């Protein structure tokens, strides 16, 4: 029984690590702030979720589970808010009027 749990942990955590790698790659490679934000908030949160999921069987007491999940929820909440704040700061003014669609033209700002 514990062998399968350990295998599950290794698999989940390594999958999470892959997502973290993808998020970091996105951060480095993507052209502008908005797409980088996209990569970071999506990939890293999912990566963290997988790591937490992988670690759950290792933790004995249920209090530990609640702690781990609370850490993940906090990361989700603060990641989303920070993403909104940064996006709000970087959003080009013309998007505000939603008349001129199109990707962010401020590629040279950050």
């Amino acid at each position, binding site marked *: 029984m514990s062998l399968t749990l350990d295998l599950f942990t290794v698999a989940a955590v390594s999958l999470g690590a892959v997502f973290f790698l993808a998020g970091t790659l996105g951060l480095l490679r993507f052209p502008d702030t908005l797409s980088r934000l996209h990569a970071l908030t999506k990939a890293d949160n999912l990566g963290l979720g997988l790591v937490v999921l992988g670690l759950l069987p290792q933790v004995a007491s249920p209090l530990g589970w609640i702690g781990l999940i609370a850490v993940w929820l*906090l990361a989700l*909440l*603060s990641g*989303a*808010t920070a993403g*909104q704040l940064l996006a709000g700061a970087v959003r080009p003014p013309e998007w505000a009027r939603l008349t001129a669609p199109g990707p962010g033209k401020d590629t040279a700002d950050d």
Partner: protein
Amino acid sequence: MTSALAVDAVLALLIFGLALWINAARTAYGAALGFMAYGLLLALVWVRLAAVDVALTEVALGAGLTGFLLLGAAARLAPDASFDAVGVSGKGSRFLIALLCAVVAVGLAAVVLVLPDPAPTLAPLVHANLARTGVGNPVTGVLMAHRAVDTLLETLVLIPALIGIWSLSSDPDWGGRPGSLPDLSSNGPLTLLAQVLPPFGILVAIHLVWVGAEDPGGKFQGAAVLAAMWVLVLVAGLGRAPRVTSQASRLLLVLGPLVFVGIGIAGVWLAGAFLAYPEEWAKPLILAIEAALTLSVALVLGLLLAGPPVADGGGVEPRP
């Protein structure tokens, strides 16, 4: 064990590299951001050094609140705002000073290597005397009982620091509310965060203070979390900092240290020495002091972040 050593080596190199990057960063803003990441990494090192209390304090105070202060200042200051316009321009002098710093660092490293490895320690002594303090966590025992005067002086240091910051306002502004915090009340997501997170933050802070008696935790960590939650509420515009002259906030500011000094003085008669606790009442007394101190220190840390008072107009630029 080499894998643990590899982890330590990577962590040490990462921290040293980040410190070099912070020094070489182009803008103060980048350096402040780098410093926040540096604080988080440093907390990992403290966990590796089996000092979880210090890791909590490093994250809450070192990376969190100090990072908030540095980021706020970096955002507001012009890049060249410096009190001495003369940096070290000459390449030669920079290299010379770098060389001297390197020699100091190498000397220090040599001394660290020479220091006795199983270092002389007070751990057994603390362990032996811990039962008399009624507290399970040795760090809390040292902070609140064995070296209580350090903690008393340290909470006391925060009061002249706060008065010093308040004194940086101009005379007509006295009586106004602290005005250094950014006003982001118009921002929807932040307001949501400021409504959802604080209740959990307060629970976590109370847990930290309560568990601090037996396991890693404690009042400074709890107070830092409380201060962070309060500042979050202030920044989101859901609350306003108390006026500088408000008697209620001053009473709360002074409550913790007063309780501490009061119990300390009572100790002269009850337990034979200043800052001593009678044996059977030690734990409840320590917890009472920690609860009162948490509130006071949280308020002081929040007010230290909120800065000097400005005129009642709130956003009005302080007049000289």
